[in-house]
């Protein structure tokens, strides 16, 4: 009687692919504003006058370069959200993300697109589309999206 064949695999081990991405002028401005002024800024398209956050170099709709940085209040409303109950390994930290956490798409006051970040309420029953939310910043900031700790719901 033939033994079932042993099927092998080769492991990459803990492969690292280190990167250092240049973020460009506008993202640099955005991150520096988070770090230095605990402030969220967007950018306005000179053609359609829409404000996008985080700032980027080109308005996709108009194909126009943008330059006008627009400070935002850090307040807005929930466009939509989800509460994650499964943890996965964050490829940037190598650690399992702790669950549950709420990942939200926020329409910041003064901006025309949405901004993604965490909301500190993790009970779906207590969340509603349209709820007002406000950004909360870390004390120690380094020029990173997580200088914003999360958004809190505003009663």
């Amino acid at each position, binding site marked *: 009687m033939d033994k079932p064949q042993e099927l092998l695999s080769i492991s990459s081990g803990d492969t690292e692919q280190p990167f250092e991405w240049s973020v460009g002028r506008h993202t640099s401005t955005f991150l520096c504003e988070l770090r230095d002024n605990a402030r969220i800024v967007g950018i306005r398209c000179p053609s359609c006058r829409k404000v996008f956050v985080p700032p*980027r170099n080109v308005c996709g709709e108009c194909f126009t370069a943008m330059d006008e940085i627009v400070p935002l209040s850090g307040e807005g409303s929930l*466009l939509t959200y*989800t509460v994650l109950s499964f943890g*996965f390994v964050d490829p940037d930290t190598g650690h399992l993300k702790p669950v549950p956490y709420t990942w939200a798409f926020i329409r910041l006051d003064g901006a025309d697109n949405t901004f993604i970040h965490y909301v500190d309420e993790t009970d779906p029953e207590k969340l509603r589309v349209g709820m007002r939310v406000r950004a909360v910043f870390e004390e120690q900031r380094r020029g990173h999206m997580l200088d914003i700790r999360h958004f809190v719901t505003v009663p």
Partner: protein
Amino acid sequence: MGKRVAIVGTGQTRMRSSRKDVNGQELIQEAVARALEDAELSRDDIDAVVIGNMDHFEGINYVDTWSVDGSGAFMKPIMKVTTGGTTGTTVAMAGYYHAASGLFDRVLAIGWEKNSESDTTGAIITAFDPVLDRPTFGGAVGGLAAWATRYMHLTGATQEDAARVTVRDRRHALNNPHAHLRKEVSLEEVMNSPMISWPLKLLDMCPRTDGACAVIFASEEVAPRITSRPAWVRGTVNRHNYAYTADPNWDFLESLREASGVLYERLGIREPLKEFDLMELYFPFSFAGIAWVEDLGLAPVGGGPRLVWDGVTDMGGQLPINPSGGVLSCNAIGATGLQRVAECAVQIMGKGGDRQVPGARLALASGFGGCFWSDLMAVGADKPA
């Protein structure tokens, strides 16, 4: 200028959550061999190859040149196209344009993925902007879940409405020997499955699959000589409108609405529900089956659930959706979009066996991925004018 193009053969591998019995090249070769057999062609007959997958799932750089033993591209032209989840349909479009250009008569298009070889979620996260999107990213499921939240808010649809889609697709898969998951699930089972990312539960989501699909596109000169029932490419349109996770329109699937609008106009379609015989749609989660059918013009806003509950999209209904079982039953990401095209071709060619939609003459395949991007390809029995 330009040739009309038809699909003359398709092949799909055994689809499993883990194909330990084959390495990547062998998986590709399995699909290619089946497609060649289906078309009764040999490797020598192929004039060009196009291949696609998502790099970080297998960790191989330059997959096109790596693949030649399996893809049959040795001493032939080959190129790789890749656009994330839409890769499979992007591959189909490339296969079409290769043949339509007049430069190649028989083109082999291959989509494949060995998701088991890596951490799928980790790899998907790397698709998004490393500085602005990744730090808080909730995975592919998170974005889809957020979509579901807003759709329910805008229309009053419920989780049960979405669950009915899973029930349909998983029942359809019973007829498809190529599907990964071939076990029916009940509405209760969907509703009771573990919550992954509110409101999406395990059974609202697609599986993770190892598999490959190959489709042979042929120019009008040679297609009728290869098969008596070629599946003609009637039209193809795509829209990849956004670069950042949070930019897309969250009220409706803009890319699908736009792409289908253009395609329908080009084909003179006014009532897609009546004029298509079936659709194979890249719906990676249940809610898509009630929400995005609206963006395809099959139902008014908020009318998706009614369409599904009424059985319109079941086998035997007016417009069967996913006779194959769809993405909820099988998802080898790089292959998935191409499988949708292959399944449409199979239907048009009358090779659908137990999943055949009787008298199918016009079918629509869609691809989805990236920042809520959409690809479309319509396949039909009639040669385009």
